[in-house]
């Protein structure tokens, strides 16, 4: 009876574990295995020649890969920075009881719910050099046209991503704001804090744990973005918007170098793993601190 009880949780977890093993661990292992081989799609993995770390080393010396990595890092950095600033700013502005607030909030989070491919198409049309909304508006105002997806491709792609994902930060920041202790804010008002000082000294520091996790989540997501850019620019012009995910898919399909694509995926995986671990470590550190604080408080009772 006792052993049965101890095994029960594992029994319940077994189906999920099995699916994870088949759908996640197996392809992952396959990818790691494949990354050590010179492998093209016409071969089975067994036929491919084992080349050791050659794919990884070649990649490191490949200027195109480096360019792509640079684009990815730039994209992720700008996207997350702007989304955090705008999202948190909006949340701070809209954290109040205005008539019709719930409707407004729903409108704000709509972009997040649209399928990425649709977002990509929509923005591609809006950015269109002659018939797109933006250039027609600029033209109508007598300002010059802008070559959105040409000269300013990365900026344009970043704008589209900000449009789509700022709502994510907005709703999480708003939730964090609304769970702040009301009385601490009232105490700050009585202590003489202006609206700005309340934001700076009370609201932001108290929201920080949520904001850090939110930012890391967005960063992880930003490294994996694919569809929107694929639809909008296909990585062009040149390599200007070719983020890693896109390069991986092109390496595998166009260049027919599965081994190199797998090695590239592994680089990305390591990067994301690092971020995930950072997030994990942060929450663990917070929990440990909360425990320590509780223990100290109980000691003094």
């Amino acid at each position: 009876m006792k052993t049965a009880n101890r095994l029960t949780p594992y029994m319940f977890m077994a189906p999920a574990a099995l699916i994870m093993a088949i759908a996640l661990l197996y392809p992952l292992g396959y990818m790691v295995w494949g990354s050590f081989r010179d492998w093209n799609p016409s071969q089975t993995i067994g036929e491919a020649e084992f080349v050791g770390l050659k794919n990884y080393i070649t990649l490191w010396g490949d200027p195109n890969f480096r360019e792509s990595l640079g684009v990815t890092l730039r994209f992720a950095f700008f996207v997350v920075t702007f989304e955090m600033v705008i999202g948190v700013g909006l949340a701070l502005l809209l954290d109040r009881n205005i008539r019709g607030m719930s409707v407004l909030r729903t409108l704000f989070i709509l972009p997040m719910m649209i399928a990425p491919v649709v977002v990509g198409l929509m923005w591609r049309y809006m950015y269109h050099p002659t018939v797109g909304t933006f250039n027609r508006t600029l033209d109508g105002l007598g300002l010059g046209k802008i070559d959105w997806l040409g000269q300013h491709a990365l900026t344009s792609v970043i704008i589209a991503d900000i449009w789509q994902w700022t709502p994510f930060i907005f709703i999480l920041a708003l939730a964090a704001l609304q769970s702040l202790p009301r009385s601490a804010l009232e105490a700050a008002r009585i202590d003489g804090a202006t609206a700005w000082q309340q934001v700076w000294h009370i609201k932001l520091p108290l929201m920080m744990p949520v904001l850090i996790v939110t930012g890391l989540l967005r960063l992880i997501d930003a490294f994996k973005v694919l569809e929107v850019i694929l639809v909008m620019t296909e990585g062009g012009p040149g390599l200007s918007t070719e983020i890693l995910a896109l390069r991986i898919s092109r390496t595998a399909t166009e260049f027919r170098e599965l081994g190199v694509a797998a090695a590239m995926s592994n680089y990305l995986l390591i990067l994301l793993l690092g971020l995930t671990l950072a997030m994990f470590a942060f929450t663990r550190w917070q929990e440990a601190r909360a425990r320590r604080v509780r223990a100290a408080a109980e000691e003094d009772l």
Partner: protein
Amino acid sequence: MPAIQLEKLVKRYGNVEVLHGIDLQMADHEFTVLVGPSGCGKSTTLRMIAGLEDVSDGEIYIDGKPVKHLEPKARDLAMVFQDYALYPHMNVAKNISFALRLQRRPKAEIDAKVRDVAEMVGLTEFLHRKPGELSGGQRQRVAMARALAKDSALFLFDEPLSNLDAKLRGQMRAELALMSQRVQKNMIYVTHDQIEAMTLADRIVVMHGGYIQQQGTPEELFKRPANKFVAGFLGTPPMNFLDCEVVDEGGAMHAVGKGFRLRLPADKAAAINAHSGRDVTLGIRPSDLTFDADAARDSALNLRTVVSEYIGAQSVLLCECGGAKVMVEINSEKPVALGSELRFAVNPTGIHLFDRQTEAVI
């Protein structure tokens, strides 16, 4: 000139009026306690004085200046909240000095102030702790210290002791009384606990249903309650209420109810006369009843004793009189027999009569 004056203060939430024209004057250096049951409007009144709630109608004057439209920070006041409202991410010293730092006072002055205040409330060794690392009583002290550090003319307390356990509450109440003597400021204190009100107040304001029921010193309110609500709210154990009728018997007025016929004191004759033959409520505090088998029939109640609750030096007897419950406070050293009908003399100055309809004192 009164330090704080409320003039026809009204608060509405939508169509619901929760405060119906509060008029109140508080003298300089006075400790005023607003007391009443939950939902009586006492906290709302305090928050309106603080500027945390908008005033729907009426005006608030501090030192003769109308302050209705001023932000809280322009009203020169400090407040202690029920849940302490400390800043969780700042240590004790930062919490205490927050207002001073916002005013950009010189660092040396801030440090000195924090030291002084921390010493005053006994927090010196905890200055570097965060609020989460403190016990409830210590957090309460931080809240107090933060208010003291501001050096405001007016202190507001919103049920500051209600989150503490009974023992700590008693201790903090004593410290608060000491502090209020020492700092000599205007204090307005909101509580639902009548013992806090009685022990701390220079002046008690009893509120109920959005109206002020009565205001005065604790003694005035205890001895001469203006209505049945105030009489029943202040004092533990609470006042006994018995339904009766005022009857004129041979020139002397009597309160006649089920199982008793009590002669009423002559000094109230005029007021009582007007109610002759009317339904009234008789109020007698448990401490105004004494066991006395030889008492005259018309100056005593015959009570059937049911249960005795031992409290310590005093015991509370739960008794029954014509179907109504009556509590009597007796000396624990002189117990009485339970389950029998005994005679308890009524202290003639302790007889209160209330109009059954208006509940006002007669």
